[in-house]
């Protein structure tokens, strides 16, 4: 019963926020356009959060996702514009998209390899690559962005009224859900996060699995980077600054434990939406973005405190 209530907690909070906003701002909030906008804006952070969920379940952390997103976008922009010399042709746009996604994947592979081969804490490795990836993004075009004015497919188009980027997010969420729940890789991720030594002694190839998790996260970041690039029709070296904090917050609000072994895809989706609707609601109600930061901070601490209290109660009962 208690466990059930605990799982309902983030969902209940989300429902409450939506209900409150619907009551306060029925005309602007309860519109198809607004909802479509919120989901579309959640899509790329949601995609990154899927990877982060796996990383956090494994007992790790990836601080480099924001910088990785900028770097992937810049590589895509470089290819699409031939280093700023042409307006992207459809052929170049496809090529650039692949290049950007590949870049993200390689960045993830690098993180995973450094963590396992040098046996370093993920926090340290990704703190380092966070800085390095950002630096490379700035160097690529001397701190300037690449304009890709006609790269609008991922950002603006819709199929049957549903934005393409939301569809991509749903597909990736489904894949992540399946991966964590129904594949040995997902199961090993929980086992490694819960007790790495025990997983190793039970025959889990810990290093190979960790590399896979960080690489998949890189892949997701690469895809998210292309959506972000398309939404702003430009590849920006400043993209995704402090994105990692929002995403870690979403995963933690969704019930994952930073010490590993615990977390779900559904929880993370709820956490992501919770932050998005909160932002949206604050904007509609005319609350400044600065206050939004305070509200989100309070929600993170409150969510984890409530979760811990419920857990402690469940244990003594």
């Amino acid at each position, binding site marked *: 019963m208690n466990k059930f209530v605990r799982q309902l907690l983030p969902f209940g909070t989300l429902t409450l926020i939506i209900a409150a906003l619907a009551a306060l701002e029925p005309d602007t909030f309860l519109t198809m356009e607004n909802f479509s906008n919120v989901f579309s804006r959640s899509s790329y952070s949601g995609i990154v959060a899927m990877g982060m969920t796996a990383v956090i379940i494994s007992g790790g952390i990836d601080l480099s996702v924001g910088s990785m997103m900028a770097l992937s976008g810049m590589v895509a922009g470089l290819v699409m514009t031939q280093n700023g010399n042409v307006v992207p042709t459809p052929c170049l746009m496809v090529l650039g998209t692949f290049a950007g996604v590949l870049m993200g994947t390689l960045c993830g592979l690098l993180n995973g390899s450094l963590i396992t081969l040098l046996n370093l804490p993920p926090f340290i490795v990704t703190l380092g690559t966070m800085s390095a990836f950002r630096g490379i993004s700035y160097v690529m075009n001397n701190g300037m962005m690449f304009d890709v004015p006609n790269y609008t497919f991922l950002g603006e188009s819709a199929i049957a009224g549903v934005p393409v980027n939301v569809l991509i997010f749903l597909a990736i969420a489904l894949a992540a859900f399946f991966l964590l729940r*129904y594949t040995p890789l997902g199961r090993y991720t929980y086992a490694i996060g819960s*007790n790495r030594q025990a997983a*190793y*002694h039970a025959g889990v190839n810990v290093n190979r699995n960790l590399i896979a998790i960080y690489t998949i996260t890189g892949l997701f970041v690469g895809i998210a980077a292309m959506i972000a690039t398309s939404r702003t029709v430009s590849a920006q070296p400043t993209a995704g600054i402090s994105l990692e904090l929002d995403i870690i917050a979403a995963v933690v609000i969704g019930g994952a434990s930073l010490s590993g072994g615990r977390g779900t895809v559904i929880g993370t989706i709820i956490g992501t939406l919770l932050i998005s609707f909160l932002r949206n609601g604050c904007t509609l109600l005319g609350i400044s973005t600065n206050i939004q930061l305070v509200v989100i901070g309070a929600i993170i601490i409150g969510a984890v405190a409530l979760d811990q209290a419920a857990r402690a109660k469940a244990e003594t009962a």
Partner: protein
Amino acid sequence: MVQSVSESAAHHEDGIALRMTGISKHFGPVQALRDVSITVRAGTVHALVGENGAGKSTLMKILAGVYQPDMGDIEIQDRRQVFANPAQALHAGISMIYQELDLAEHLTVAENIFLGAEPRGPLPFTISHRHMIAQAGRLAQRYSFDIDPAAKVEDLATGDCQIVEILKALRHNASILVMDEPTSSLSEREAKRLFEVVRRLRTEGLAIVYISHRLEEIIDLADEVSVLRDGVLVHCEPAATLDIPKIVHHMVGRELTDFFPMRTVQIGDGLVQVQGLSSEAGIRDISFEVRRGEIVGMAGLVGAGRTEVARAIFGVDKKTAGQVLLNGRELNINSPADAIASGIALLTEDRKRTGLCIELPCSWNITLPSLGQIGFKPFIKPAQESRIAGDVGSRMAVKWSSPEALASSLSGGNQQKLLVARWLLANSRFMIFDEPTRGIDVGAKTEVYTLLNKLAEEGKAILFISSELPELFGIADRILVMRRGKLVGDLATKQTTPEQVMHLAAVEEKA
């Protein structure tokens, strides 16, 4: 600052140090203790025994102020006391030494002893390390403990850590010392030293409550024995008139005539050959054979290299020489994953650290090494997984509310069975059990023995590492003896004696 314990206790030389009367305690619907009364005299060792879950820990946590009783009184030296928290109990002279030692590893012995009451230095907010080390040294000397107060705790052996805990208690002027399973992680030699220490503390006038599963040492050490069963005090008697069968009888409420199962297994031909095995962990030139249906015991003191042999075979430690053959074929094992693929299982000695993922479901723990096998590929089907785990779990008679219950919800003995179920499902042909009965109660131990026997009957080859000679002699067909990284004996159980094994294991050891 450091008062003599004997002075304060001298007035109560023949007096009652501790009297707990009519203690009851429930957690939710579970009655953990019902009307329990015990009396402990100063200058005696009072042993508290009972199976896991009998209520020993709850009773001691009430004494230490961790829990508050629903009913009942605590009197310390004839004065009634109510403890709202552990600090008050400590102040009243009660010190607990828990099974998992409670020391700050990166600090020195002296710093640990004086934690929270450090001698002040000349400047405000400073500590005088010189005084602290000197005082710690004097305290150790007074009780003739041989320990360096300036040493870091992380560099000490487990036995020495216990001495530090005891010194900590003495520094608090403890008159009542509670020791919870103090010998469970000690070598034979360290345990002997601890017994001497306990006897010395007894003559100093301390009242010692001693909890242990090892009944031999209780008979040896205790003045009085109290037996708890299902939260009720079922028996209390001077140790002098007790023996092990009597204690066991009171603990389990029945005679354990069938403590060890009858071994009727037909031993088959050789399955595992270990030849000239050496590893980076310091074992040298180990050779032995285990046949189908055979249980081979492995004896030795702590640190003799028994666990290291298991780790080398299982691919955890790097081999530097030698080979392992299964069915006459040489195996190439570089990791536990390789070993498992070859049909080898290792039930590690540390269930919590290297065995279970405690916060994951039982079923996940069981299937973990088998997920790569047919039936789970390419996708895990939860219903099927639950059924498979449920089947193998019930074969091991694991007591759980369902296979989806968290592993942390099981008792120690059931967690052990869960791990055995894991390797049963992995279809291991050669199973290594490293101290499988450590820290589990008598009833659960018997179940483990029965289990080993059953596995042997199924034709598995078993290597059984244990520090308890009686169980090796009770269940093993042969006994290997390790000493300082070498195999020094390979004896048929029927043709040897515990004395001979002990001699082989210990003879070259220098104090």
